[in-house]
């Protein structure tokens, strides 16, 4: 091989190796599944082009995903929720949530508050049949509304605190995840969650919960429940980005969180939250 042939070969070799490396990385990221949170943990640190979810803007292509640059949360506008239950269905499909009618990563509750303060609550996701108007004998209803529920991805999460092996952890971008390959299945986290957001997945024999669809979020996509909501009652966004829809949502509404006295600092923010909701 003479000098010219060598240089020619090198000119082909370097771009080819860069291309192969990029393809390999993308293929690795493509293996990420919703149920495999360790891969999700890796995805958070992997060099991937990412958009800022909820901003509607494409991320800078080719730049690495920097988890520390984000702080995710969700806004829920209770007046906009029509109780269609599409979010719960989409979540089950997207995340392979067990098909039993009582295991949910997200669900919708219906509150009916009658004169005299009597409050009736039902989980419409358990029995998602169309509901008619109130019966004539129930006409003393003062107000009725739907409340979507999910993991609050607390900034001060009791589930993370109690996990004996660190299988439940907070990511730097503020998402609480379960590493199903580390979880020993002691279920202490389920006991510690004040919101009933966790369940025991009998397929993996580990704790399971909402991930904010982390596998989608790190790719610049919205969580499945947000994506399918027909009334945009759910708003997902990055609280570190001033352009985020969530920041605007927080600016435009009176915000409440669930069980604030427990000091869990939830990152699911409710607008028009009734005092009866627990």
């Amino acid at each position, binding site marked *: 091989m003479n000098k010219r042939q060598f240089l020619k070969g090198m000119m082909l070799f370097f771009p080819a190796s860069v291309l192969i490396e990029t393809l390999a990385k993308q293929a690795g990221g493509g293996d990420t599944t919703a149920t495999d949170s360790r891969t999700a943990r890796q995805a958070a640190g992997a060099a991937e082009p990412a958009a800022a979810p909820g901003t509607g803007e494409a991320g800078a292509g080719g730049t690495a995903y920097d988890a520390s640059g984000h702080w995710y949360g969700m806004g829920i506008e209770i007046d906009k929720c029509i109780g269609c239950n599409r979010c719960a269905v989409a979540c089950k499909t997207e995340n392979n949530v067990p098909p039993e009618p009582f295991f949910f990563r997200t*669900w919708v509750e219906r509150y009916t508050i009658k004169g005299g303060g009597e409050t009736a609550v039902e*989980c419409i996701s358990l029995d998602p049949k169309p509901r008619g108007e109130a019966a004539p004998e129930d006409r003393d209803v003062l107000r009725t509304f739907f409340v979507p529920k999910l993991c609050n991805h607390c900034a001060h999460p*009791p589930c993370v605190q109690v996990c*004996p092996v660190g299988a439940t952890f907070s990511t730097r971008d503020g998402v609480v995840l379960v590493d199903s390959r580390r979880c*020993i299945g002691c279920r202490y986290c389920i006991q510690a969650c004040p919101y009933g957001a966790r369940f025991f997945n009998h397929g993996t*024999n580990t704790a399971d919960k909402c991930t904010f669809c982390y596998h989608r979020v790190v790719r610049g996509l919205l969580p499945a429940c947000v994506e399918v909501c027909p009334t945009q009652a759910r708003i997902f966004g990055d609280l570190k980005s001033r352009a985020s829809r969530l920041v605007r949502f927080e600016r435009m509404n009176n915000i409440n969180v669930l069980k604030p006295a427990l000091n869990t600092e939830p990152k699911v923010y409710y607008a028009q939250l009734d005092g009866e909701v627990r």
Partner: protein
Amino acid sequence: MSPGVPKGLSDLLNQVIGYIYPNEIEIHWSLLIVVYPYLTGLVAGAFILASLVKVFNVKEVQPTYRLSLLTALAFLLVAPFPLLLHLGHPERSFEIFLTPQLTSAMAMFGFVYAWYLMGVLLLEIWFEYRHHLTVLAGRERGLMGWIHRVLSLFSKDVSPESRAFDRKAIRVITVIGIPSAFLLHGYVGFIFGSVKANPWWGSVLMPIVFLMSAIVSGIAMVILLYMVINLVRNEKIDMPCLDRMVSFLFYAVIVDFSLEALDFIHRLYQSEESVKILGQLISVKLFVNLVVLQILLGMLVPLVILALARIRRFNDDMRKFLYFTSVLLIQLGIFSTRWNVVIGGQLFSKSFRGLMAYKMEITGMEGLLTSVVLLIVPFIVLAILIRILPTKRLEEELPEPA
């Protein structure tokens, strides 16, 4: 139904009273987790009874000193099994030792357990038995001789100096052992008491209530075993010893009852957000277990019996009968206490709007049969331990010829 999902969960939906979060339909900490604090409570209580002899110099209970230590060991050896069998991934349990999350109360389990077993109980038992084992090993032939030789770690020193050292070591270990026993069971109480999401559990008194009930159950168990073993061996019960142990039991039950009453009154008086649902929990779900079994049969009736036995001068046989009845009732009461804490704490929704139902498995891994086996095994272990390690001291076994 997906594979692995317990059968009957769907049926439980029909037994829900009020509103619960959908995921709450499954009771996660089942019968095995009732058995676990019951076992560790017996360990702590038995050890504290043993330490009365060595630290507080209560000579009357000396005849039960070794039995108390062996009881503590037998129950401690079985204590991790209910936890292990309950885990979704028992094969990963070693992660608790290798990569513990330091903020987790549960992660400390391995360390507290290992410390108590290795640092306290086994050491104390070894020093207590070293001289005895050395003598036995010299006297015996065959398998038992070998077992005793190995257990004495081939020690051959029977000099008075070595025995004095044994006694000193035992005293030091017991002094360290008492706070360790408190730690072992207080920590189990902390696992529950620190859960702020659950108002039935979340109480600062929980570790102390656990500890006092542990002392009650441990003393009652040693009394029960002492009486049964003497009956089996057809030996005379040392009545001053029995009276003294019962006296400690009596005061321990009073303290335990006072603490639980304080907890109850405090909750009722504070009347927080959860008070309504907890009231419903007691009246609908726990009435028999809490009011009848735990408080009435497990505490008040034994207290009255023990008080009667102390006030009235009954003869030995009558006292033995009364004591035996009380300690049996106390065991029932303490098991109900564990049930009411563990299962009771999972029978109401964290929405404070509804009550769940618990359907106990019979044959499953976390079922009744497994629990019964785990409750019987410590007695078998104890029988083996007593066979190898005599509960009577050498001096009692071989009285000097007059």
